[in-house]
Structures are given as structure tokens and as C-alpha cells.
């Protein structure tokens, strides 16, 4: 009976194992291999062992600039989504008193996610564009006498887009952490004479660390790899690592894209390891 049940467990885990072997582990290993391949215009992959794909990545000043811009995006988006996400999670967890109301407000935040990312990004065009609503309002109020050009197809627009897409990924894990906080701890803090800020800073924030770390990992990983938001809201003006890789792929330059991907992967792993030091994520699972 024991042996049978062990067999059943393996059988049950088999489909998952196979999918991740064939469509994840093997492909990632292949990216490593392909990053050493040669390539030509009409042939995507030429098996070989060359190092120049990596030499190109590391010797190009464009690489460093692109990473700098991407890091800047990451840092800005992380800071904004963290503060905003924490505030909203705090509101939902501690100020909304019924579960039904919490669910309703959560649903309100998730409904926009039921439409395509591309459409959600395009939706900023009539607002931020040269003749968009924001510019019209600014002109009408006399704040500027010329349309502001940097609202759309700019780093500003890209950050807006990211905040729009990813704040929810910060709200959910932080909210989840907050719901596990024992209410008596908060009472104790109040009884000990802590004011609202002190309770938030000394009790709630430390207890939310795992949630904050998980949200941060999501946001950092997604911003680092993104190319869609940058494409749509950055126009042709804004670069990012993901976009650089996507551009190489659109010219069917697989090996340099693979080398670039490996570097990106290394950077993302380092960032995530740094975040993991900050909190024990496994506590949340």
C-alpha cells in the first residue's frame, strides 16, 4: 500500500515534470548553448562555440546605457508601486471592515486586467498624447502655452504604464501578509502608547516583509524583462533590455539575443537574491 501510494505520487507529478522539462529546463539550457552559436542572415543558428556574442554584449556602450535606463525604470516603478501598493493594501486590510466589501474593492481593482495589455497601454494615447486630454487641460488652465511633448512616447509614459500594470502585483502579496497579522499585536502597540505611524512602521512593516519581498520580486522581474510596454508607450524613443532582445529576435539574430538573455537572467537572479536576503519568502508559501 505504501509503495503503491508512492508510485501514485510520481504518476501525479509526472505531467508537471514533463512540461517543465520539455518547455522550460531544456529551452533554458538551449539558450545557454545557443548564446555560443554563430549566425548568419539567412540561417538563424549555426552550431559552433564562439565567444563573440558575449564580447559584443560586454564591449558595447549601448549595453551599459540600456541597463542603466532599465535599472532606473526598475527603481522608480518599484518605489512607486511599493508605496502605492502598501497604502492600498493597508486601507483594504485595516480600514475595510467586512470581507464582502474587501472582495468587492479587490474585484474593482482586477476588472481592468480583463482587457488586453496592448489595449490598456494604447488607452493612454488619447490622454497623454500631444492633443490628449491632459495637454488640453494644461492649456486650458494656462499652465503651459504649448502642448507638453514628454507625456507620451517617453520614459514618463513608460513608468505610468508600468505602475498601471504592476501595482496590483504589489497589493496582493502585501495584503496577504497583512491579513495574517494577529490583531492583538496592534492592540498591544496601541496600549503601549504607539501612535498610528509608529504602529505601521514598527509593527506592520516588519511583519509584512515577506509580502513586500514577493511583490518586489514580481515587479522587478517583470520590469526587467518587459518589451511590450516600452514598445507601445515609449514609442521609438525609449530603450530597455527586454526591447533590445526583442529587436535582435525580430531580425532573427538568435545567438546574440541568447547572450543578451543570459546576461539579463544573471542580473535578474542577482536582484532577486538581494531581495530574498531582505525577507524569508518561504514563510508565505
Amino acid at each position, binding site marked *: 500500500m505504501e509503495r503503491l501510494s508512492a508510485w501514485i505520487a510520481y504518476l501525479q507529478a509526472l505531467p*508537471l515534470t514533463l512540461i*517543465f522539462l520539455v518547455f522550460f529546463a531544456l529551452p533554458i539550457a538551449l539558450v545557454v548553448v545557443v548564446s555560443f552559436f554563430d549566425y548568419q542572415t539567412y540561417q538563424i543558428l549555426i552550431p559552433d562555440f564562439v565567444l563573440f556574442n558575449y564580447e559584443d554584449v560586454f564591449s558595447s556602450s549601448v549595453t551599459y546605457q540600456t541597463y542603466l535606463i532599465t535599472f532606473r525604470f526598475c527603481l522608480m516603478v518599484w518605489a512607486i508601486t511599493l508605496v502605492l501598493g502598501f497604502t492600498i493594501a493597508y486601507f483594504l486590510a485595516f*480600514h475595510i*471592515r467586512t470581507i464582502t466589501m474587501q472582495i468587492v474593492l479587490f474585484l474593482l481593482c482586477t476588472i481592468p486586467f480583463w482587457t488586453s495589455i496592448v489595449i490598456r497601454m494604447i488607452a493612454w494615447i488619447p490622454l497623454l498624447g500631444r492633443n490628449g*486630454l491632459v495637454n488640453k487641460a494644461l492649456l486650458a488652465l494656462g499652465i503651459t502655452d504649448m502642448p507638453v511633448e514628454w507625456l507620451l512616447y517617453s520614459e514618463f509614459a513608460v513608468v505610468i504604464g508600468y505602475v498601471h500594470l504592476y501595482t496590483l502585483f504589489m497589493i496582493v502579496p502585501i495584503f496577504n501578509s497583512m491579513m495574517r497579522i494577529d490583531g492583538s499585536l496592534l492592540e498591544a502597540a496601541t496600549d503601549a502608547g504607539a501612535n498610528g505611524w509608529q504602529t505601521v512602521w514598527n509593527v506592520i512593516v516588519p511583519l509584512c516583509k515577506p509580502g513586500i519581498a514577493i511583490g518586489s520580486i514580481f515587479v522587478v522581474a517583470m520590469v526587467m524583462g*518587459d518589451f511590450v510596454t516600452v514598445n507601445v508607450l515609449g514609442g521609438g524613443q525609449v530603450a530597455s533590455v527586454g526591447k533590445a532582445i526583442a529587436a535582435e529576435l525580430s531580425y532573427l539574430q*538568435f545567438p546574440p539575443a541568447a547572450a543578451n538573455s543570459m546576461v539579463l537572467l544573471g542580473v535578474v537572479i542577482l536582484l532577486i537574491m538581494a531581495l530574498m536576503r531582505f525577507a524569508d519568502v518561504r514563510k508565505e508559501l
Partner: protein
Amino acid sequence: MGARTRSFYVLATIFGAFVFFLYGPMFAVILLAFQGPDGGLTFPMNGVSLHWFADIFRPQSIGDIWGSFDRSIKLGMMVMLATVVISFLSGLAYRKRFRGSTVLFYVVIASLIMPSIVVSLGIGSMFELLGIERSWWSSAFGAHLTWTLPFGLLIMFAVFNRFDPAYEEAARDLGASGWQTIRHVVLPIVAPSLIGVALFGFTLSYDEIARTSQSVGALNTLPMELHAMQTNVTTPVIYALGAYTTALSLVVIGVSLSAVLLFRWRQRRHGSDADKGMV
């Protein structure tokens, strides 16, 4: 609990502003989709009509929208089904100990964090090297599963953490076989969560671009088609399309949520479906 404090109103205002920020652009797009035939991509509205909605159905006006829409729906359904079945089985597997479970778990989580474009490139290269044609139902299907299954598995962990094994023991004591226990005891209890997994799987797949980009092959999915369109379509037809697909998604979520509610209601009214049929 006492009266609302001032911080409540401050926070409520921030929340309201956030919701406005989420919905504002969508409302602009939906409103502009009703532009008159001479209307452009921005305000003010140039007349009001259904012109651009009709334009979606004129075959030449835009790319292969209907083909890609059809593929996205089918792919979403396939991914949804596979995600539910595989997540459920894996959830069951993880309730017991099996060798390699930790490694497998970390691989699955790694997939969640891996930049999607790297996964996409890997799958694309694999098919290229093996000389197999890439397509939405093979390579892109696999690519989507690497994105939906981690979420599915995490949800199943949460579900089985709260699952009381006493129900299964009771079933076994009453002489139920392993399969009967799963069919008549476990499945009905976790069914609402499985609908959640299904919804997750469908939407994640339906909206996926980065993992699709290198794995889809010659025929696009809807998000890929929209992404390609947004650079060269300069009429409000793209807004009409946005409004249309949003409405469709809302119908889908409405139907699924009603299904969950109906299920709960039926369960409360009739107890479980344990006596309905023998499989």
C-alpha cells in the same frame, strides 16, 4: 470599532484616485470607440456612431483579427484545461512526499521569475534546432503552460493546506476506493478553487505576449496581432476592438463567477453531489 478616523478618509481618497487611474484610460478608449466616421484617435468626439464597431467586421480594414481571436480563444481553452488538470494532479502529488519534489518546486517557481522573453527564445530555438515548425497549438501552448502552471500550483498548495484529510479517511473507512474518494470527496470540495485556477489559466494565456512572441510561429494570437497593429492602425477601429474585447472578457468573467456562486449555492442547498451518479 469607533467612528471613521481622518486617516480613513485620506486612504479612501488615495484608493479612489488609484481606481480612477486604473479605469480612466479605459473609459477614454471606450468613449472614443463611438466616434463618428470622421473621428480621430483623440478627443473631442467628432460625432457619435457605431461606425468603428462595424468596421471591425469589414475584413480588409484590419489584420487577421478574427483568425487570431479564434486562435487565442482556442489556445486559452486548451491552456485552461491543461492547467486545471495538471495543477490538480500536482497538488495531489505534493500532499505526499516524493523524491525530487523540492527540485521540481524550485524549477516551477523559477519559471515565474524567469524573464518571459528568455523562455520564449529558448522554446523558439528548440523547435528551430529540431526542425519542427513552431505553432500556436504546440510551442506557444507549452510556453503558456510554463506561465500558468506556477500560479495553478501555488493556488493548489493554498487549497490543500486548508483541506481536512479527515473527509478522505471517512470515505476510505466507508469502503471507497482511491478513485472514488477523489471523485466524490476531494473534487467536490476543491471544485470552486479549480474554477479559480481555470479562470487564471485562461486569462493569463489570453493576454500573454512575451512568451508567445518567439514561440507562436506564423499565425498570431490576438495580443500579438494587436501589438503588431498598434503601430500602423491610425483609426478608432483599434479602440472599438478594445471596447469589444473588453466587453467579451467581462462576459466571460461574469459567467464564470456566476458558475462559482451557483455551485456554492447548490452545494449549500443539496449538500455535495456525492450521490449523483457513479464514476
